[in-house]
């Protein structure tokens, strides 16, 4: 193997962190959704790298499962974003602040 396993895992962890920071700091609901996608896909990268490293095809199946679930998640997320937009006229997460103590 040309590139060692740790590089792939390192890249995946960096992507996951970028996604997590995006979810935590970005204010646009659509960007938050995108960040969630980055997190899910970085996990796919981990699965695929380990599958290659172990010579095991099982994890390829897991990746397809994750892709399907991520698609379903985005569908629900966009529907909720539309609801938010209808009420607030924007998809800014900060403007949805009716619930607090």
């Amino acid at each position, binding site marked *: 193997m040309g590139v060692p396993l740790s590089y792939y*895992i390192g890249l995946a962890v960096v992507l*996951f962190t970028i*996604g*997590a920071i995006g*979810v935590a700091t970005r204010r646009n*609901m659509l960007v*938050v959704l995108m960040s*969630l996608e980055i*997190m*899910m896909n*970085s*996990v796919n990268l*981990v*699965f695929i*790298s*380990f599958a290659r*490293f*172990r010579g*095991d095809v*099982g*994890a390829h199946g*897991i990746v397809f*499962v*994750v892709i399907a*679930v991520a698609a*379903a*998640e985005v569908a*629900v*997320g966009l*529907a*909720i*974003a539309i*609801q*938010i937009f*209808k*009420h*607030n006229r924007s998809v800014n*997460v900060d403007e*949805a*602040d*009716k*619930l*607090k*103590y």
Partner: protein
Amino acid sequence: MNDIVLLSPIWLSALTGLLVMLIDVLAARDQRPGYLGYVTATGMVVSGALALFLWRHGAALTSPFLKGVFSFGPYTLFFGLIVLMMAAASLIIAPDYLRQQDADQGEFYVLAAFSASGMLVFVAATDLVAVFLGLETMSLSIYAMTASNPRSAVGAEAGMKYFVLGGLASSFLLLGTAFLYGITGSTNIVDIGNYFMVNPPLGAAILPSFAMALVIIGLGFKIAAVPFHFWTPDVYQGAPTPVTVWMAGAVKAAGFAVFGRLLLTMFHANTFMHIAFNYKLVVLALALLTMTYGNLVGIVQTDVKRILAYSSIAHAGYILLGVYAVGTSGLLDSSVGFYLLTYAVATIASFGVVTLMGGSMNEDTSLDRFAGFGRRHPLLGLLLTISLLSLAGIPPFAGFAGKFYLFKDVLQSNVQYNLPVVIFALVNFPQITGLNSGVGCIKRPICCVIFTHLMLDVTLLRLRSNGLNSLHLKHFLQPLSSNLSGNLGP
């Protein structure tokens, strides 16, 4: 027995969803059928009865693939039944509430049925990928149910908050799964546990600790443990109350079932004793933080749904304490299950009353609206009071027995710091959160109730070495299950 038959509780609840969808589509638009909620609830009850019937006969899956994915032992049976009971209860109270809110859509019940099916997969799964699938099936439906009322701005907001944080949590769990797969080459939790048994992690053990932390974070969100709780009050308050019942009861019970199973099977205490990152102490820290935060912040709340949300956070802390004290014998051998049962029943009852009131009160559930509630609705007031007292752990109600046996288990276990921890939990005033919301209904008895409670706390501490028959889950399941030789096993 045929595997398909054995899996029937799972697919039957999904089938209920399809059936309800069909009825809703075929019915004329202008006369929406009012019985959809009851059809769904019936589906849940039938699923539960089937689960009881099939799983108690000790039938095992035969297909080699399914054997590694699901387990239908007494553990699954117990939590599956709690989940289905909670589901049926929230579906029975849902139709009236939704009609009053003018949001009685068939889709709500469809999603509920799919969510219940996902929960059963979640509870029964012994493979991390199946756990993830079950979790997502359950959660995606609940996100949509939370935001299901198109006229409710707070509902949409609650749905968004739950969705974002839930998605974050699932990603964490998934990354933990990926790392465990990388370390052990398997996603089956028993295989992972065996791998760690054979190759115990030593020293810093960065990768296993990292994976473990990710799993704990991912599930910590679902059971609303501090510091992963911050979505809870907002979502519980903003969601339609039947969905709140669903989240506070069924999702929490399922979350704890999986939390206990994953931690105790994969990260077996004996093998993970020697590494720097000891998960037992992490669970203990989470437990103490969770109960303190839930109880303290609950005091200052002014909305009944928020108070109950904080109460549910605090209860998560006590249940985590039980998980902390569980020995090698597994969760089935502890009083955590009984505690969860008492919590679930009291939660259904209290949120049920709030649901009945919420619909007609135009969803204003602030404490002031509940002043004099007992005079206006004597029976409902009594029910609310009893269930709040039970949540608070006041004798003679069930919640007291739950807390009593939980503390007794912690004291009698051989975990570190068991005595200081229990004293801490006792002075944590578990009652305050519950009693605060009881103020509207009953004012005077509170002082004497707190006094009684303190008296009993002292008695409990003195009783700690006495051999009272414990309410272990095992004794509960004795009549339910014919073969209880195995413990938590898959």
